[in-house]
């Protein structure tokens, strides 16, 4: 069913979209500068009506030898038509920023913060981009593949202990 969504996206946005299907999940990889436009279309078009966000996360493809390094994805759901689709944007390490979709679906607020916290992806236009699980003083992005699992960063406050 979501196949028709991909076809509609391709015919409307043409070059900005590449599509793939993996194990029954439909994915549309969108050019970064067209993302908000595509997302708004998916939400507002009555035939699409993707009214509800599911999750946002990122895939670090460092060890998969795929380029560019990060693929940020947003899973969406249409409660009206009972269908699903995943949007993805690929960004390189040195320019790891994507437009925020919180303006389209408010429910993505914390999900994008989590992705920022874990992968260091910056969401342009997010109203409150702070770390969510970790503390402000934390250095680095723990879910990136080059962050060692054994690394420890205990939070020690030494104020007034001279």
């Amino acid at each position, binding site marked *: 069913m979501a196949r028709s969504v991909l076809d509609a996206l391709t015919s409307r946005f043409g070059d900005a979209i590449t599509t793939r299907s*993996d*194990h*029954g*999940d439909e994915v549309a990889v969108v050019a970064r500068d067209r993302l908000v436009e595509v997302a708004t279309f998916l939400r507002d078009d009555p035939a699409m009506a993707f*009214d*509800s*966000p*599911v*999750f946002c*996360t990122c*895939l*670090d493809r460092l*060890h*998969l030898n795929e380029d560019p390094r990060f693929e940020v994805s947003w*899973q969406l759901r249409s*409660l009206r038509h*009972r269908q699903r689709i*995943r949007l993805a944007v690929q960004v390189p390490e040195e320019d790891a920023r994507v437009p925020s979709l919180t303006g389209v*679906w*408010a*429910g*993505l*607020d*914390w*999900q994008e913060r*989590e992705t920022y916290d*874990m992968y260091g992806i910056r969401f342009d236009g997010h109203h409150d981009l702070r770390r*969510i*699980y*970790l*503390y402000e003083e934390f250095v680095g992005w*723990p*879910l990136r593949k080059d962050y060692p*699992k054994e690394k420890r960063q205990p939070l020690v406050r030494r104020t007034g202990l001279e």
Partner: protein
Amino acid sequence: MSSLKTYVLGRKTAEDLDRDDDDLPNELMTVNMGPSHPAMHGTVRIVLTVDGERVVSGDVQPGFLHRCFEKEAEHATWTQVFPYTDRLNYVSPMLNNVGYAMAVEKLLDLTGKLPRRAEYIRVIVGEISRITDHLTCTGASAMELGAFTPFLYLLKSREWFYQLLEKVSGARLTHSYVRIGGVFADLPDGFHDELLGLLDKTEAVMVEVEALLNNNKIFHDRMAGVGVLTAEDCTRLGITGPMLRASGVDYDVRKDFPYSIYDDLEFDVPVGSKGDCFDRYLVRIAEIRQSIRILRQCLAQIPDGPIIVDDPRVALPPKSETYNTIEGMIRHFKHIMDGIRVPPGEAYTFIEGGNGELGFFIRADGTGRPYKCYVRSPSFVHLSTVGNTIKGHLIADIVPIFGMINMIGGECDK
């Protein structure tokens, strides 16, 4: 001297009260609620800005229970991830087990190819877990509002189910019972009768609890009209599960995207009409009844047969083979040390968890370990809405709103 007032207790007129209000300081105050607060079960902190007793804004801060689920999963074999999933939503671990197993099975192309008995066992333990989840949520919320007796009744009932699951899996709380391609062991002797007995006893408990709570003036006043979310709000925010249904949307993964054997089972999806905390409570109570209904059907229908798929790629060999043949020994060793080989690909699989849509987004690179294992936890999404919901409410209203979210720290903080 005329500005001096005399305060005589109990002798004020309405006019005096009006004037008094003007004199009260109206600066905003910042209050920390949590992370260690009796009503903030699951360690979460809310930094409140309050105007007297009224909440102006609240910054909800999770993360105190962050245990790097994803990072650990990336370094464990596919089977070793099960114990980590137990610790996500620790009041319904079986549902997490099933959700994760289904995601891996999707990548292995085993969806729908499991033995029927294994599917039935999964649904049985999953629905028991859903009941324990709802029992905990309603019980804890009632207690936080001062109703201690229903809490004891509900937890007593939950304990029966935990003991039954202990007989099934060997562990009271962290079961790790499900395996990729089936389950770890068959149901123990006498399970059938014991579960039927428990369901009858639990129905009796539910009658008692509803008698204590449904028309309880205090409980009703604290819950009704509090934390209202409309169907549009819920949809836009990505809320699922009992909270979404309390707002009147009949979305249930078991009905809308049926998996396992839910197509063959008869049950209803209860929905609320107002979307307030009281509706969320009623929906949960109704869902316990539906789960009991599902369990009775499963017990009547469950067939005999194998409990794990007969596929040497995913299933451990029987112990007799492991100990007596070199092939069995090698296969066992490879499974344990290297892990199951899952073909490359990515998939998102979701089930109806205790609190809503519980999903696993997994990327496999062909080795014995997940390349990425993201969990879409309903608690995290629901908790993110609390900051806005509590605006304009009284501080005391935070307790039922937070309670009916049923935030489970392990699942929310990953």
